[in-house]
């Protein structure tokens, strides 16, 4: 039976919506209609227990599905449910227009009645996991992950690329902390990670899926082997690299110029009496990070404490630990704000000419050594590794995280994580946290024993011409071209529907959200609107189910009202919207179509924000070329922190 259940939210929605009229006018669409006053409370849920059976299709007209959907997901026996957020999307935002609001409610309930007809039960996904983990890189973070996971009883293989020599962990990681702390940590980690299986070699190929990856390893002894793992953690190092001013400073031409990473070795060799003048310079073109700044301060303090005269030319020294600055000053380090202009080799030493910005004058220093602050770059093998694994890199060549703010160890690929300096140069404390964070994510995935469900894409073999557009568009490697088929990998799928809009032959159907369902719904909204509102213009908002939907919900909470005649259709991701749905909206008479997506770089499925902008741009160009007004179509982002976005977008009509 098709049932409509409405909630008045403590009898308040009746102020803005005419429930009697709603009941009368949608009567023929549903087989039963119930009105409750507090569906979300125990009495409402008990009512639903009794009222809804497994075979019913249900439309719930209440508050936003984001709120009521949480308790209802557990209590509703039927999976085939469509929600109409009467409170946030209608009543609360159209408080001064009861007739218009009721009309809008009727349009949306009618739409939901059609929507439930298209709903299918979700598909259960096989979540079999291989309970083994591969770590790439045995530096601090790699050892920490190994140690964490071993302690939790997970089998770990540690892959060391051939150029990683385990003896010089300390030297390579010097920038992360002071040497005694570092030594202690490395010693502990070596003890606690004993028992880890170490392999020296590189990854030559990756296949399989999240939770069940097959990794081909090329051992340094020439042997090839294949291992099955549930997850991969990249824990490669950062490397010191000469700065852009290296050439000007005669680096490589004279042993008087050296890199900061070479300074401590030089100082350690010094005898007590030899006091030298050491000039340390930052690279003005390099954006100093806290870890690089702290490292510089520790090294110059050490050099000064050994009796050398140390001068540091700097612009901004970034450090988390202000006391390092104070210690450096106390040890006698001289800080001068300015940049190195010229270095000349003279008999008496290197002459460094510096423009001092504080005193606005040029000064020259004759010194024994010129020390260059290094740039901390990603490990040189990062790019080939990322290419093999299918990972994205950031601007500087470090492995890019999935989402910079909340997902610090997740990569663009499900089941592959990063730890420590593979992300960005980190101090010891942050690297250890990052490593444990990666261990946690992996552990949680591997012990998962729940059920994974979702609506998945289904490829029509007849229509598919194997162009691979979907394979390239899928942000999660969930579609692959294998033989004469496009194969779906459900464990990688995030149920976003981006593949549907990418397919030029329209060969992909998404469960519950078929192409036909969008067209039918768009048409019915228009028809119903015209029936109730006549010539009054209307706009359609194709909103993603994440940030955009949240922003529209929050418009209600924040009292940011907007005119009626504005209908939100929720897409799983804005990236699923194709020009066809946009054009359909225009054809049925919408004055404006707004595609609302997550903020730039903030799409929950990685690329939907960008793709929907492209699709809208493309549609606008098309409209322009046939003499139509392209401004009727717009893509924009919406977020909960900007509850005024909906108001801005639909308030003013052209």
């Amino acid at each position, binding site marked *: 039976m098709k049932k409509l259940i409405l909630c008045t939210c403590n009898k308040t929605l009746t102020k803005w919506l005419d429930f009697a009229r709603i009941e009368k006018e949608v009567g023929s669409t549903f087989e039963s209609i119930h009105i409750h006053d507090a569906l979300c409370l125990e009495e409402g849920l008990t009512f639903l227990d009794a009222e809804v059976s497994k075979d019913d299709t249900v439309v719930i007209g209440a508050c936003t599905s984001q*709120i009521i959907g949480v308790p209802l997901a557990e209590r509703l026996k039927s999976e085939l449910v469509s929600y109409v957020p009467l409170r946030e999307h209608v009543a609360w935002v159209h408080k001064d227009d009861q007739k218009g609001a009721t009309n809008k409610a009727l349009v949306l309930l009618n739409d939901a009645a059609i929507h439930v007809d298209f709903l299918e039960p979700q598909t259960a996904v096989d979540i079999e996991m291989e309970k083994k983990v591969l770590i790439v890189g045995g530096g601090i973070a790699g050892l920490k992950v190994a140690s*964490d996971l071993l302690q939790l009883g997970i089998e770990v293989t540690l892959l060391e690329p051939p150029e990683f020599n385990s003896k010089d962990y300390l030297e390579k990681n010097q920038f992360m902390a002071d040497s005694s702390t570092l030594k202690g940590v490395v010693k502990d980690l070596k003890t606690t990670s004993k028992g880890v299986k170490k392999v020296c070699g590189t990854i030559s190929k990756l296949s399989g899926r999240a939770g069940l990856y097959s990794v081909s390893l090329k051992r340094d002894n020439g042997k090839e082997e294949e291992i099955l793992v549930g997850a991969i953690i990249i824990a490669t190092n950062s490397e010191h690299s000469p700065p852009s001013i290296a050439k000007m400073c005669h680096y490589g031409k004279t042993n008087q110029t050296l890199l900061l990473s070479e300074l401590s070795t030089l100082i350690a060799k010094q005898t007590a009496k030899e006091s030298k003048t050491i000039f340390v310079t930052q690279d003005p073109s390099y954006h100093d990070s806290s870890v690089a700044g702290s490292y510089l301060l520790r090294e110059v303090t050490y050099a000064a404490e050994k009796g050398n005269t140390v001068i540091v030319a700097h612009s901004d020294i*970034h450090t988390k630990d202000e006391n390092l600055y104070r210690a450096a000053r106390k040890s006698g380090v001289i800080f001068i704000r300015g940049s190195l202009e010229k270095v000349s080799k003279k008999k008496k030493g290197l002459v460094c000419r510096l423009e001092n910005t504080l005193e606005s004058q040029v000064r020259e220093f004759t010194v024994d050594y010129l020390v260059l602050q290094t740039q901390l770059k990603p490990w040189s093998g990062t790019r080939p590794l990322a290419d093999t694994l299918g990972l994205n890199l950031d601007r500087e060549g470090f492995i890019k995280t999935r989402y910079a703010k*909340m997902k610090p160890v*997740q990569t663009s690929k499900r089941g592959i994580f990063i730890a420590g300096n593979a992300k960005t140069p980190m101090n010891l404390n942050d690297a250890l946290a990052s490593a444990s964070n990666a261990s*946690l994510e992996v552990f*949680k995935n591997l012990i998962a024993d*729940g059920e994974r469900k979702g609506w998945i894409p289904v490829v029509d073999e007849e229509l598919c011409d194997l162009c691979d557009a979907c394979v390239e568009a899928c942000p999660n490697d969930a579609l692959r071209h294998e033989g004469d088929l496009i194969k779906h990998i459900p464990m990688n799928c995030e149920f976003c529907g981006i593949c549907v809009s990418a397919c030029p032959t329209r060969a992909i159907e998404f469960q519950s959200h078929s192409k036909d369902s969008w067209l039918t719904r768009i048409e019915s909204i228009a028809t119903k609107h015209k029936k109730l509102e006549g010539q009054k213009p209307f706009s359609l908002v194709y909103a993603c189910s994440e940030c955009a939907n949240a922003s529209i919900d929050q418009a209600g*909470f924040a009292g940011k009202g907007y005119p009626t005649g504005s209908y939100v259709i929720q897409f799983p991701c804005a990236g699923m919207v194709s020009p066809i749905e946009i054009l359909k909206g225009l054809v049925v008479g919408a004055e404006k179509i707004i595609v609302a997506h997550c*903020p730039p770089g903030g799409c929950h499925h990685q690329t939907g924000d960008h793709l929907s902008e492209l699709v809208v741009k493309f549609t606008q160009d098309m409209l322009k070329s046939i003499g139509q007004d392209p401004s009727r179509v717009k893509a924009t982002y919406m977020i909960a922190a900007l509850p005024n976005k909906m108001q801005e977008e639909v308030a003013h009509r052209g």
Partner: protein
Amino acid sequence: MAKTAVVIGAGLAGIQVAQQLTDLGIVVHLIEKESIIGGLSTHLGRVFPTGDCALCLDASTEIFDGQHRRCQYRGLVTEKKNLKLHTMTEIKSITEVDGNFKISIKSQPRYVDLDRCVVCLECIEVCDVKTPDEYGIRGGTRKSIYRPVPQGVPLAPLIDMEHCTKCGKCVEICKVNAIDLEEKESTKTIKADALILATGVEEKIPLDFPGYEYRTSDDIITHAELARLLDPAGSTNGVVTTSSGNNVSEVTMVLCVGSRDLDASEYCSQACCTYSLKHADMLRDRGIDVTICYMDLRVPKSSEHYLTQAREKGVKFLRGKPDRVVIREGKPVTIVEDTQSQKRMQIESDLVVLASPLASLGIENDSITDFFAEYGFAHRVVREGKIYACGTATGPTDIPTSIAEANAVALKVYSDLIGGV
């Protein structure tokens, strides 16, 4: 028997660690002294490094749903079975018996039952009492039954009894009987196996910082206050105004007001450079001129684009720490020596925004203050196997680092309490 952990502070780090532990089968009591969760994030609107919404949480069950993240109001924190959220609650005492903690907590009455309220907000509508809104500036008001911010979670309102006249209108209108004007404060003792400090930081109010006149003028404000002015859901609808209600056309920002200063806060607050740049960007987008007076610009690599953007958008940078900010003819004037040109400048502007240090909140509570060390910040491992700290309780930092640390602590607590597979 299930293991129990108590997390103090429901900011981003506290929520993160609580959700992770709950997912791993540990019972969590999440203690929050405010009426809503989110901590600093509820004040900020937009946050770095992504420049998007502050109301984002990590939906930690990512293997099952493809969504990965959730908006705070989507309710997982208040809905998870093993996660008990105690808002308006403070720790009264912590004692140790046989290696376990007995933590006694005291909750202030909300007067609105979270399990009964359907968030129809009719009670707010009928309330007659208007009082100044502590979240808003520039004369915003709220009712005495109110929701602090539109996006606040739990969604249910609360009553400010100090201003409530007990007229009973809200009780009468609430047909689901969620309001109890006679609710009393309650105390409770929780037995716990582990304790996690996620108490966070707060922007210090520079009331007594000499020379900057914060106390005398409402046109000299902090960044937290500027964030409220910039918030489209705030009392000014996102319009940046002066105390006399005029639109602002020039803003001067002063960095390190009381930070990196041996006479005030010795440490560097890490985040102020970036959020000053973030706010400068947002002001420039509204056509407002911005000058930033700084000592060093310490912007982490992940937020470097804010600096680039600020330069491109024409934010003026001036290296020098102002001696004084004075009020002349009703307008704040910043007196500063530009250390690059060595010129003394007097910059008149409509608003001066001070970057005041981020100070630890954990040390304010006597029963936990001993767990904190230098400058009022805690070490990540306060006591091996028992007490941990994460987020800005261990020192000011950005969101990604806080989240990573919260996850790391969750793993540590799980290893301690339960162990492997």
